[in-house]
């Protein structure tokens, strides 16, 4: 099936040339570890800011691989082959987003508890943290694909991708951090989790169309 072949291909490229998700996780761990060095090791302070810091580290590690999401294919001509295939370009984008999430978002779910421990996050908010990352990080890959597609034809689009995409990540960041904070204060996290999931669900059909339109311009 062409759609699965696309996902398999991107996963294979990620594992053979970029170490799969390992690099993103390493960045995530280092970024989150820097926080105690910067603000001091006071447990009360750390546990207060831990949700926000974890989410910011997650955003940044997602950006690491985002600028190459389409650029590599545009540069080596693969995008022409993809664009001429019977698979609609929108589905090509969706497949690439899924592969991107599997190699950046999913590993973060596994690494997040370790970082939560380092940042003295209260144990009671672990489930909310995992849930918020699980619901929110797919939106990071999907929304990020729009920025990546807009800069796909540029030589050094990496920084521009970040500048375009990071503001769009703000709602996901706010809702994700709020969900974890709420659970730490024994308040229900569900409303924030649902809104976070709603962003992902809205991005799921919309982002591939926008990104595909941008890619058609990139290969002209």
């Amino acid at each position, binding site marked *: 099936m062409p759609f699965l072949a696309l996902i398999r291909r991107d996963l294979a490229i990620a594992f053979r040339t970029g170490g799969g998700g390992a690099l993103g996780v390493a960045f995530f761990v280092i970024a989150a570890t820097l926080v105690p060095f910067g603000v001091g090791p006071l447990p009360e302070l750390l546990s207060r800011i831990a949700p926000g810091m974890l989410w910011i580290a997650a955003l940044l590690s997602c950006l690491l691989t985002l600028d190459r999401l389409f650029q590599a294919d545009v540069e080596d*001509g693969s995008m022409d082959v993809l664009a001429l295939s019977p698979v609609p370009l929108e589905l090509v984008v969706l497949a690439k987003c899924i592969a991107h999430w599997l190699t950046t978002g999913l590993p973060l779910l596994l690494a997040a508890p370790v970082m939560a421990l380092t940042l003295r996050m209260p144990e009671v908010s672990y489930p909310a943290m995992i849930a918020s990352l699980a619901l929110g990080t797919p939106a990071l890959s999907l929304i990020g694909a729009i920025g990546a597609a807009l800069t796909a034809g540029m030589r050094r689009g990496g920084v521009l991708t970040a500048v375009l995409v990071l503001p769009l990540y703000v709602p996901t960041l706010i809702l994700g951090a709020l969900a974890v904070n709420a659970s730490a204060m024994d308040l229900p996290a569900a409303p924030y989790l649902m809104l976070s999931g709603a962003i992902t669900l809205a991005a799921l059909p919309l982002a591939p169309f926008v990104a595909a339109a941008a890619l058609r311009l990139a290969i002209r």
Partner: protein
Amino acid sequence: MELIAENLRVTRGYRTVFAGLGFSVSEGGALILAGPNGAGKSTLLRILAGLLPVEEGEVRFGDVSLRADRGAFVDHVVHTGHLDALKPAFTAWETLAFQADLYGAPRGRIEAALDALDLGFLSDQPVRVLSAGQKRRLGLARLALIERPLWLLDEPTVSLDAKSAARVAQMARDHCAQGGLVVAATHIDLGIDGAARLDPAAFAPGESPSDFSRDDAVLDGDAW
């Protein structure tokens, strides 16, 4: 089925590359695009592949219009460009396996496609160790892998040695003999009987194609 292009006009940047360009290629026929650099050969091929929009004019393959139904038109086309669309991390076999899956071609055809371009002995080698000519041949293997009637070849023999170039020319002749169509920008003779020649530069408006000054029509505002 016949490939017909009528009254094509293309603007790249501020320059009208060609206007009023038209041709037809019948079943089993070939069209060789010749002309100086910048004449619009690659541009024309990318238009025919549906990668660039048809700004003005019409392209039809049989009853299928590129403008009206790009998807159906593109299903008849295979395009090989300047770039070989290869990933260094994949082996030659894996490269074609992915393309076969993507285009819905049977994987059983991979070996034959590799052999057609004399790449069988490299099938388990990663692309990054291939030479420039071998990469180009692997890029062209898509022609044999995906059976489509209309071949659009952009300088297919660049970086190929004489033997490989002859092999590609033979492939193009065989394709035409089986009723396929070939439109190729090439500087070597593919040796296809009755191949027509077209120089897009002959359709350049006014100025010579190497002149990058703005086109009058654009300055007059016609293009907007």
